[in-house]
């Protein structure tokens, strides 16, 4: 279970997220949605221990992301927006590297790697160096390495970003399977169709704050819109466009 309470994070003078609170439960897919610059990535980065919040807290299975960083890191599998590979290592070597850093060794690790190669349909490129991998292949390697330690909680930042139709579908299938197996899945997205098809609980961010949250049905009801996309636009961009990409450019 992932809990976020009163989260605030600013970069110099730019407030990226302000008073963000939500809970992502086990056996559910929770979607963090919002336009570019709404604070999705910043929120996730605090959760997966890369950023420290200025105020509020983030907990994974009750462990604080700042004071109990290692415990959080053990319990999460992270697919960040940055999912770069090592071009000279094979797909299998990527997964092995992460597995070893998670403390896995020997036959158990190799079995788990085989399992992931099978599940994610990576057999055709598992032993090839990553140089020249397609976006879909890159994503599968990034996924395999973040799932190698069978984490209970998974955090996916824009998991289908840049993927073709069949890769996106495979990704959605994987997410559903993980939810059905009781995992806590937290993802960010700005594609409404995907969100509608996947998420049990939605947290809509706009300008760094939670605009509205609940099930897709509740959100439609609360905003009085029949269509989720309409609802999304009405809460995320009340009046004027929020097009300043705060978190993405904060370190430029």
């Amino acid at each position, binding site marked *: 279970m992932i809990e976020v309470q009163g989260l605030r994070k600013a970069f110099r003078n730019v407030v990226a997220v302000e008073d963000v609170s939500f809970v992502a439960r086990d056996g559910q897919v929770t979607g963090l949605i919002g336009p570019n610059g709404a604070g999705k990535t910043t929120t996730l980065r605090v959760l997966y221990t890369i950023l420290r919040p200025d105020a509020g807290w983030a907990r994974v299975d009750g462990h604080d992301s700042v004071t109990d960083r290692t415990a959080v890191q053990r319990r999460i599998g992270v697919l960040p927006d940055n999912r*770069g590979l090592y071009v000279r290592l094979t797909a299998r070597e990527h997964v092995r590297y992460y597995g070893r850093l998670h403390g896995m060794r020997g036959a158990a690790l190799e079995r788990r790697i085989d399992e992931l190669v099978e599940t994610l349909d990576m057999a055709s490129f598992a032993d090839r160096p990553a140089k020249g991998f397609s976006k879909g292949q890159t994503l599968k390697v990034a996924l395999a390495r973040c799932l190698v330690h069978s984490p209970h909680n998974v955090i996916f930042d824009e998991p289908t970003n840049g993927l073709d139709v069949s890769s996106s579908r495979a990704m959605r299938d994987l997410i559903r399977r993980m939810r059905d197996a009781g995992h806590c899945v937290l993802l960010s997205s700005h594609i409404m169709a995907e969100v509608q098809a996947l998420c049990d609980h939605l947290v809509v961010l706009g300008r760094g704050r939670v605009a509205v949250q609940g099930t897709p049905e509740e959100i439609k009801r609360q905003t009085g819109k029949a269509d989720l996309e309409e609802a999304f636009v009405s809460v995320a961009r009340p009046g004027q466009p929020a097009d300043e990409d705060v978190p993405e450019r904060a370190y430029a």
Partner: protein
Amino acid sequence: MLDTVRIVFAKETLDNLRDRRTVLMSLIYPFLGPLVLGLLIVFVGKMLTAPATQSFQVWMDGSERAPALVAYIEEQGAVVREAEGDPRLMVKAGDVQTIVVVPEDFGDLMAAENTARVQVVVDSTRLSSIMTLSKTLDMLQRFSRTLGEERLRALSLNPELGQPLRIETVNVAAGRNIAAVFLNMLPPFLMFAVFIGGVYLAIDTTAGERERGSLEPLLTLPARRWHLMLGKFLASLVFTALAVVGALVAYKLMFEMVAAARVGINVNPGVEVFAKVFLVILPVMAFAVALQVIIATVTRSFKETQTYLGLLPLIPSAPGIVMVFVPVTGTTWMMLVPTLGQSVLVGQLMRGEPVDPLHVTVSVVATLAVTVAILVAAARCYEREQVAFAA
């Protein structure tokens, strides 16, 4: 802790062994120093070997006006050749190295037993003409002296009257003087190898990892960040050490080849000297890599890192370059400065001079202390939020 360090170390070593650029940088680059130095020794050696008097050519302008001089030169076994054209232009153009110009009035002044004038035209910027010039001057001076003695004898005077001073030079360096200059070139060359050997790996594993977007997921793993950094540091250190060993082996081979070529410069420090040199500069390797890691961590992009780290080797090499021409006596304060102390010590070892054990101890301890301080600072930088994100 050791597990993380070892896993990262193994991964970075494997990853970079597969990278032709890193391997080239580590293994080919250090060989350039020995190559340059070897060619230099052979060239300078040939240049400084005194030409044999037999078949030595003395170029003259107006030789017909000085038959006695020509006869004297030919008596010595050298050959007189008449310059066809403007002597100054010929020397300037590099056609000949020196030309002895005999003026119009030479014959008359000689006949009248007066002092006649000859000019030796030379281009002093051509280092290769040094030996020809000194040989030519030597012949002219001896001719002048012989003639003077004859004149005194004709007057029934003691020929030694006109020569109150006889100058003898005793060179205690016995041919090693010029060789020492080449040995002095090793410290700056080695410092360069130290700062170049593992630099690509240091950039690739830090700035490169960030720019590829692989650092962010790595930092979400349950591993202490400074352990990750230490693994990367050690991998870069091993590549640096390999490069330095490669360079030292190449220097030894080069000295062997130069010795076999017999160019008159006799330098060939033994294997044990090179082993001691390696041990003395081992702490500098750690210092160099620590510096590279912290620079690659705080800079914002791969390109920026490359710029800084490309310039970095010039700083530690600078004192060594000065010391090639102005050798310094090692003092304890110098040993406190990483790279400077080692430059002095390597020079002493290479020249076969005694090395003060206190100096070695001070340089090792001081350099390692600075290295640890840099690593602690680098670990702090790794804890910063910005570390994961490229500009």
